[in-house]
Every structure is written in structure tokens, then in C-alpha cells.
């Protein structure tokens, strides 16, 4: 850290501390701290990875710390007495702050193609399950997004939730650990464990602190996701079993299973089993119906996590697992899936959002529309489109997270979210209105904000996509139409809520945003503009990994058309993959305990004899 940075941080911190008009010393100090840290984040992004930093600088246990730190802390919370609220809160903050700082370390390493911070260890040798975690330029952003938004959600939750703090701390910590675990797991079994583990704290969060209809929403959330994931489990086990038939080795490792080419029919069924699980999580039309309920009923903190991180698990997992394991299916279904993403997601969800009376429900539907864009970028499978989709995942986390927090602010004051109850709020809450408009602009994708870059790249990628074949033009028009719709529904709610006469007398005495709420929102505002003006800070780090994936998709899916057998599974030869991609794959040099003979390369053509 150079002296100039330090001075800058001091200056920014001082300005931040001076901003609130009615803040206590505590809020001033923390606001200053947040301002200084934000500057540090931006500066460390700017300087880029140090050229000398290499594999040697990767501490292999960093990811383990990031995953199990929060989980162990969650268990520790159970032993803290529930009366000592300040200890509970302080402990949660401390753990999350530590995780945030630790995750910034991930950014200091150049994201060359391949896996970084890779750790493997045997877990259950009997069925070939390993503890295998690693990140690349794709997952690193989602991990940082998680460690960045969770503390914000926690902070804003502690402001509005006053009951059962112990359970709240437990849920947030467990949720964070499980989400990071799902992002970094490269063993399908490990991934599944985290994927399911995540449901429990979210279920608790919606069910305990939710709105009037919380229980129905919580159960719906749990069952929808579980129904998808059990299908995925069946597909995983089938894949593993095929791999065992081919090589004689049981392995759940993603890098080992990449090589398995299932028979045609099975390939399609497994692709759908994986993808439906992910589409439910995304959520894509028509399996999106759990989302509006879950969002509306969840407490603000839960909504923020749900929108900012949890939905990204669906898009991330589609990118990693569906596209990685079944490239041919992903390409051949792409035009239809993109059509669904546009009609069902971008257009239909936007129209539904337009008609909502409840602001939170409106934002929930706008999430469906935004995730439609992200999925469109992934279906197009071009370099630009996928990078845009990944950037849009971050953007959506920031802008929608911000919107949910802002809705939470007004709900805490009026205990209603009906658009009709409001009007002319800009007169009584000018700062609040400004922040809301910024979030809206980011969400709509006005140039200069983060949303613009992502959407633009996605639309550009769609137009040039080969995977979408002849439909690329039509899809582009549909997607561009969606941008207009987004402006329609977001701006109409802004207009109705903030401008016009202050007609409802109940709104006359509303206080403007408090220092605490501003503190929670400020890092998000900073990021809206940082990404909006300097997207290459983010795009540069994800470029290599995304191009590795898109090359893999193009090469392997082309190869598979002729390679796939009607009835027998096959193994792809190792040289059809970039070596970076298979780094750290399990080696089967030694035969397993059962004495199964190790048959390695070349891949036996025609499967087992």
C-alpha cells in the first residue's frame, strides 16, 4: 500500500465521517471506515495484479478458510448466550469482515487460465469423493460478491430485525459459508452438499423473520429447489456410474467427469436434469413462481442475499456444470432456451413487473427479467456475451441488492410497500430519492452505470452468436425490446413514488435516510459508478477463464457431434481439453482397493467390452 493510497484513504475517510448530519460518533467512524475501505478496494482493483505474483503466492488454504470460517463461526454462535446481543453482532461482523479482507486476496493473483488456490484432499475414498476446491476468473467474482454483499445484508438486518438475533447470526454465517462453498467446489458431490446446505438457513430466514405469508413462501422455496436438485443428484450419480464403467474408478470430480461422453439419450436427460435444477434457482420462466413469494415474504437482509448471491448460483452453476459437462446439448438447445429466456424472462417478467402494486414484488419480477439477460448471454456462448453475463451477475447483485435495501427502508417507516400509498416522497426524503434513482438507473442500464455495460455486452454477444444460429437477429431484437420495457416499469414506479404531489398525509412526517442506512448503501453506490465507468477492471480478470470456457464449448461440442455413441458411454481423450482446464484432475495411476484394473488413455472406443 503506497503512502498516496494511505493519504487518500485518510482523506476519503474524513470526508465520509463528516457527511452525516445527525450521526453519532460510532456511525461517523464506521462511515469513514467504509469510505476508506471502498477506496482501498478500488485502488487494489486498479493497480491490477502485481506481475511478480504467481502460483507461489497462492496460499492453498485460503478457500478452505473462506468456506469453513463462516461455517465454524456459525456453530460457535450456537454457544454464545442469546442475551449478549453485542457479542453476537460483533462476532458476526468480525467474521464477515475477516472473510471480506481474505477474499480481496483472491483479486491480487493474476487470473490466468486454469484453476487457482486449488486444494484437494481425500474425503470419502470409498465412493471417490474428494474435497476439491479452486477458483478461476469466473468464480472469483462471485466469491467476492458474496463476501461483499453478505456483511451489508447483515448490517441492514441488524437495523430492522430486533428479535432472535442469535438465530439470525447463525443463519447468515452458515449461508455465507455454504454459498462460497458452492461457488468454489469442483467436486460434484461437494457442490451438491453445499447446494443443499444453503437451503436450510434461507428457509429459516424467510420462515422466522418473513412477512405475513412467510411459512408458505419458505416451504415453497425449499421444495421447489429441492425438487430440482434431487433430479440433479440422479444425473450426478448416473454420470459417476458411467465414469466408473469406463475407467474402473469412482470419482465425483468435475475434472474427471468432464471427459465422460454419455450416450445420446442419456446426455440429453442428464443435461436437463442438471439444467432444470439450475433454472429453478435462477429462476427462469416457467419455474420462477417461487421467487416473487420468497422475495416478498423474506426480510430485507434475506432478499438482498437471495437476489445478490443465491440466484447467481443458478447462473454460475449453469455456466460451470451444464455448459462444461454437456457442451453439445448446451449448444444445440441454445436457440430454444434463449427464446424462453427472452419471451418468458425478459419480456413476460417485465410486463408482469409493470402491473405490480407492491414495490418489492415489482423488483422481484425485475430480477427474473435481469436474470433472463444473464441466461441469454450464457446461451449465446460468445466471449462477449458470457463476459457480459458474468459482469451482469455482479451488477444485478449490486443494483437489485440496493433496491431491496431501499424498499426495506421505506417499509420500516410505513410498514407498507404499496405504490399507491406513496407519491411525492422526493420532497420529504431527498437523499433517499436520489439513491433510489441511482439504483433505478443502474437497474435499467443507463450509460455511466454498471447495468449498461453488462446489458450492452450481452446484446452484442447475442447478435454475433453462432450457437443461436439463424435466430440471433430475432433474439437481439427481443432483448433490446426488453431494455425499453425495463425503463418503462422502473421509471413508472419512480415517478409514482417520488414525484408529483405529496398527497398522502401519512408521508408528510417521514424522516430521510438515517446514517446507518446510508452507511449500508454507500459501498454499493460506489461500485455502481466504478463498474459503470471502468468495467475493464472487472472484465480483464475474467477474460481468460471465459475464453477458456467458450473455446472448450466450441471445440468439444463440434467434436462431440460425431463422437457421441447411441448406446455406449465413451471417454474423451485428454488432449481434447486445454491442459489448464484439467489441472488438478484426479489421477488414477494406482488401482483402487478393490483391485479394479486402471485403464487410462487412450479412451477405449466403444466403452466397456
Amino acid at each position: 500500500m503506497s503512502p498516496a493510497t494511505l493519504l487518500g484513504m485518510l482523506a476519503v475517510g474524513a470526508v465520509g465521517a463528516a457527511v452525516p448530519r445527525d450521526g453519532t460518533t460510532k456511525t461517523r467512524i464506521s462511515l469513514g471506515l467504509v469510505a476508506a475501505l471502498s477506496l482501498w478496494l478500488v485502488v487494489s482493483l486498479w493497480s491490477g495484479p502485481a506481475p511478480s505474483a504467481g502460483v507461489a503466492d497462492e496460499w492453498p488454504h485460503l478457500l478452505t478458510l473462506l468456506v469453513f470460517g463462516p461455517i465454524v463461526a456459525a456453530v460457535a454462535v450456537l454457544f454464545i448466550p442469546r442475551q449478549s446481543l453485542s457479542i453476537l453482532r460483533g462476532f458476526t461482523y468480525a467474521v464477515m469482515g475477516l472473510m471480506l479482507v481474505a477474499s480481496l486476496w483472491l483479486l491480487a493473483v493474476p487470473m490466468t487460465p486454469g484453476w487457482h488456490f486449488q486444494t484437494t484432499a481425500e474425503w470419502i475414498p470409498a465412493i471417490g469423493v474428494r474435497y476439491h476446491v479452486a477458483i478461476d476468473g469466473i468464480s472469483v467474482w462471485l466469491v467476492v460478491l458474496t463476501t461483499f454483499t453478505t456483511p451489508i445484508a447483515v448490517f441492514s438486518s441488524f437495523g430492522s430485525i430486533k428479535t432472535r438475533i442469535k438465530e439470525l447470526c447463525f443463519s447468515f454465517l452458515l449461508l455465507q459459508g455454504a454459498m462460497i462453498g458452492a461457488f468454489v467446489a469442483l467436486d460434484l458431490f461437494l457442490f451438491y452438499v453445499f447446494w443443499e446446505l444453503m437451503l436450510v438457513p434461507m428457509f429459516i430466514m424467510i420462515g422466522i423473520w418473513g412477512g405475513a405469508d412467510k411459512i408458505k413462501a419458505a416451504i415453497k422455496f425449499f421444495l421447489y429447489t429441492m425438487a430440482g436438485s434431487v433430479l440433479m443428484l440422479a444425473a450426478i450419480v448416473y454420470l459417476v456410474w458411467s465414469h466408473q464403467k469406463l475407467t474402473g474408478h469412482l470419482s465425483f470430480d468435475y475434472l474427471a467427469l468432464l471427459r465422460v461422453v454419455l450416450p445420446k439419450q442419456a446426455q440429453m436427460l442428464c443435461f436437463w436434469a442438471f439444467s432444470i435444477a439450475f433454472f429453478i434457482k435462477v429462476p427462469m420462466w416457467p419455474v420462477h413462481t417461487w421467487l416473487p413469494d420468497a422475495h416478498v415474504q423474506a426480510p430485507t437482509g434475506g432478499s438482498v442475499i437471495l437476489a445478490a448471491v443465491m440466484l447467481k448460483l443458478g447462473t454460475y452453476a449453469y455456466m460451470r456444470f451444464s455448459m462444461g459437462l454437456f457442451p453439445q446439448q448446451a449448444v444445440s438447445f441454445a436457440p430454444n432456451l434463449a427464446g424462453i429466456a427472452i419471451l418468458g424472462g425478459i419480456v413476460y417478467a417485465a410486463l408482469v413487473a409493470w402491473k405490480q402494486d407492491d414495490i418489492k414484488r415489482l423488483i422481484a419480477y425485475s430480477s427474473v427479467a435481469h436474470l433472463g439477460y444473464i441466461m441469454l448471454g450464457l446461451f449465446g456462448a460468445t466471449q462477449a456475451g458470457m463476459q457480459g453475463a458474468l459482469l451482469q451477475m455482479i451488477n444485478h447483485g449490486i443494483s437489485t441488492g440496493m433496491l431491496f435495501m431501499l424498499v426495506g427502508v421505506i417499509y420500516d417507516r410505513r410498514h407498507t410497500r404499496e405504490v399507491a400509498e406513496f407519491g411525492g416522497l422526493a420532497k420529504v426524503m431527498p437523499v433517499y430519492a436520489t439513491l433510489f434513482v441511482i439504483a433505478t438507473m443502474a437497474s435499467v442500464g443507463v450509460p455511466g452505470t454498471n447495468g449498461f455495460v453488462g446489458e450492452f455486452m450481452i446484446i452484442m454477444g447475442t447478435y454475433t452468436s453462432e450457437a443461436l444460429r439463424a435466430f440471433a437477429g430475432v433474439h437481439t431484437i427481443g432483448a433490446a425490446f426488453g431494455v425499453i420495457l425495463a425503463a418503462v416499469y422502473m421509471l413508472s414506479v419512480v415517478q409514482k413514488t417520488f414525484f408529483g404531489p405529496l398527497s398522502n398525509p401519512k408521508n408528510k412526517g417521514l424522516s430521510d435516510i438515517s446514517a446507518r442506512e446510508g452507511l449500508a448503501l454507500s459501498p454499493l453506490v460506489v461500485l455502481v459508478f466504478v463498474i459503470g465507468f471502468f468495467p475493464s477492471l472487472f472484465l480483464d480478470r475474467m477474460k481468460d477463464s471465459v475464453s477458456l470456457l467458450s473455446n472448450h464449448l466450441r471445440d468439444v461440442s463440434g467434436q462431440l457431434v460425431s463422437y457421441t455413441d447411441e448406446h455406449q458411454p465413451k471417454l474423451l481423450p485428454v488432449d481434447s481439453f486445454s491442459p489448464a482446464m484439467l489441472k488438478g484432475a484426479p489421477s488414477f495411476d494406482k488401482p483402487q482397493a478393490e483391485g479394479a484394473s486402471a485403464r487410462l488413455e487412450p479412451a477405449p472406443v466403444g466403452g466397456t467390452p
Partner: protein
Amino acid sequence: MSFDLFLGLSPILVLVVGGSLLMLAEAFSKKAGTPESLEGDAERGPSSETALGSAIALFASAIASVAVWLYGPERLEGLAGLAPYLVLDRFTLFFCFVLALGGALATLLAGGYLPEHKLDRGEFYPLVIFSVVGAMLLAASGDLLSLFVALETMSLGVYCLTGFRRGSSRSAEASVKYFLLGSFAAAILVYGGALLYGATGHTDLAGIRDTVVAIGKGAITPPADASAQVVQAASAARGKLGVFVVGMLLVIVGLAFKVSAVPFHMWTPDAYEGAPTPATTFMAVSVKSAAFAILLRVLLGGFGDAGSMSWSSGWPPVVVALAVLTMTVGNLVAGRQESVKRMLAYSSVAHAGYILVGVAAAAKASADGQASVLFYLLTYTLSTAGAFGALVWCGSRGKEAVSYEDLAGIGKRHPAAAAVFSLFLLSLAGVPPTAGFFGKLYIVKAALGAELYVLSIVLLLNSVLAAYYYLRVMVYMYMREPAAGAPVAVPMKSGYVAAALVLSGVLVVLVGLLPGSSLEMALRAALI
């Protein structure tokens, strides 16, 4: 020679000796006062020492089975003399361990439950112990005769346990119902056994299998130019085969009753609900495990030849149909229950369905399928005993936890009880990383290995159905507040119950995180 015999039978002998001593101790001990004097001091009932003693005996038996396992039953040549009546192989030893563990957890629960609910009579414990002896013998039996004797030894104890709450008409009804239906099923089983004997001339399972193979070969329609004698012999063999098939089906029905597979499950909810909860626990875990042990042994060891195991005419399709029915009906009905205990009863029916999937898989992918059944029974024993135990813990005399409403808000009032209950429910629902998840995973893996694709999808979708009613309990515990003036459950205080819960809770998490060694044991215990 005799040393071999003692060592090999030690898991059972420990229990026989221990049970007899406890019975004597119980008979000669002075009653420690009238029930009224127990008020406020639940720990000091006359049965609390007996509970401890019986738990020790059962744990000793579990340890003995581990010891024999480690020594290696193959090295004990003296045991060969017991065959075919008793087969003491690794399969039996695995079940001895699971059965003793289930029994021990049930007696520990009883040690808290019986004094609390003024049912403090010492005969509960010897009954459990002798039932476990019967269950172990059942798992070991390789002959239809010893099978029947062991089955009745086990069942008689359980009939009494069901009716243990003598003052309650519910309990009496449950006991009578269970007894009548149980005797009926036993009769069907004996009749099936008689037909098998008639068809094959053997009562031992290995003999039945060998003879059936021979008969099956003889029954092939002879060529047109065969002599009259050959034709006659073939038609006679076909007749025998017909008798055999009927006998086989009757035996399967008799055993399906014991594992409470739909449509032979009618007794289960009533018996489970009427019995005192520790007895229910014992029925749900040990009786069911022993029944699955003998089901596997009979199906694979007795009927396990090519003819009766084929998918066109053998038992596997029957088992598949039973599995689908049992899972689906069990889950659908469980979702509609208003009493938690009854819900758990139906859930145990549904679990029997999952295990039947493993049995069906064992027909094709033999070792894997069997291992999955064994492993599932271990995880099921732990989670079910834990769930019933948590239910016991959540209630006290007059303030029992019966319906969902009783549990409302318990997460706030008694977080420890609710947390433990949730752990076991999540394990039953199969949420990773608990033991129950791995149990389901292995069954699915075995079923896929046996190419039972649709069946495994049905299982997985059923587990989503099941998640609904397990979550409902959690919803009531954490997310609902009791209505004003409504009766609420107040947790009891008992070291025994706490010990049982801690033990099964630790094991559920441990098997969930490190399932490797127990799975390897299950694989080694697979029959063939």
C-alpha cells in the same frame, strides 16, 4: 470348538444372560414406593437402574459383535455346526450391531419416559432385550424353522411392549390389533414355508435355492420327440414350480407385513401411536431392521436363483411394486397427519419403501444393493431413534408433544430440544451432510447401477414429498407461536434421554461427514 461357539454367539449370549439377570433383579427388588412418591423426582424410579443395566447389556452386545467382526467370523470354525439354523457371518454381525444399538437407544429413552409418565414397571427392559435376542436370531437364521421361532420370539415381546400402557384403551387396541394382524401374517408365512417345503423338500434356504434351480431346469418344455417319462417329469416339475411360486409370494407377504410395506402396513400407524414412545422407537428401528435382514436373506439366499430372480417372472418386480406403493402412499398419508407421532409412523413406512428400492437393486447389482440396504438401516436407525427420542424429550407428563400445535414455539422456549429434533428431521429428509443423505445416496447409486432408472427417480421425488412434512415440524417449532391458552409441550428432564439423543446426534453427524468406514463395513457384510 466350544470357545468358537461362545465367541461367535457372544452378542446374543450377552443379552440372554443380561436379560435374565435383569428379570431376576426386577423380581426380587423392593418397589421403591408408590407412584405418588415419585412426583417431582423422575430419575429415581425403580426402573432407572434397570434401564441403565439393560442399556449396558445392549451396548456390551454391540461391542461383542464388533469384537467378533474384528476377529473375523470366518476364523470361527465351530460355528459351522449351527448352520443352516443359525448363520453367523458378517451380515449377521452387522445386524447384531444395528439391532443392539437400536435397542440400547430405545431402553435409554424408556429410562426417562417410563418414570415421567408413571409407567414405571421394570418388565419393559427384559422384554426389549429378549426381543432384540429374537431379532438377532432372526437376522441369523438360515432355515425356515429357526426363522419362524426367531420371528415369534421377537414379535411376542413387541406385542407386550405395545400394550404396555395398560390403563390406556388406545394402547390396548394397538396391542390387540398388532397381535391379531401379526399372528395372521405369521400364519401366512408358515403356510408359505410349508408350500416351499412341499415343493422342494427342504426347509433350509440354501437347500431351497439349489432344489429350485434343479426343478427349474427340469421344467423346461421337452422337445416333441421326448419319451413319455421325460414329458411327465417336466410337467410334474412345472407343478412343483407353481407351488413354489405361491409359497414364495406367501413368504414375501408375511415378511412385507413385518417391514410394514404398503398394502400390509395397516397396523403400523395404530400400533406405533398406541405404544409408549420408547416401544415405538424399538418397533420402528429394530423390528424393521431385523425384518429387512431376513427379507434379504430369504430373497437372495433362498429364492436367489436365476429363475425366481428374473424380471419376467421372479420376485424383483414384486419388490419394485411394493417399493413404489410403500414410498408413495407412506409419504402422501404422512403429509396429512395431525399427530407428529403418527406422522413419524407413516414416515417409517415410507422409509421401508426406500429400503425396498435397495432390495430390488440387490437383485441385480448384488453387493452394492445389499450394502446400500445395510447402510441405510444403520442411518435410519440413528435418525429415527433420534427423532422419536426428541419427541419424547419435548414432552412431559400431562404436557406431551402429540400434535404439531403442541410443538409450536418450542424453538424459542427450549432451543436445545428443537435444534436436536431439527437435526434428526433433516437427516430423515436426507439433507446433506447428515447420515440420512448418504443412506439415500447409496440406495440411488445402487439402483442406478442396477439400471432401475425410473425407480430411483421415484425415490428421489418421494424424498421431496417427504421433506414437506419434516419441514412442517420445523415450521411449528421455530416459526409459529402457540395460540393463547392452547396446551403446549414442556420438555422433560432426563439424563437417559439426553444421553440417547447425544449419542445418536453425534453418530448422525459423524456418519454424515465421514461415511467411508461404515460404508466399507456394509460392503463387507454383503451376503454374496
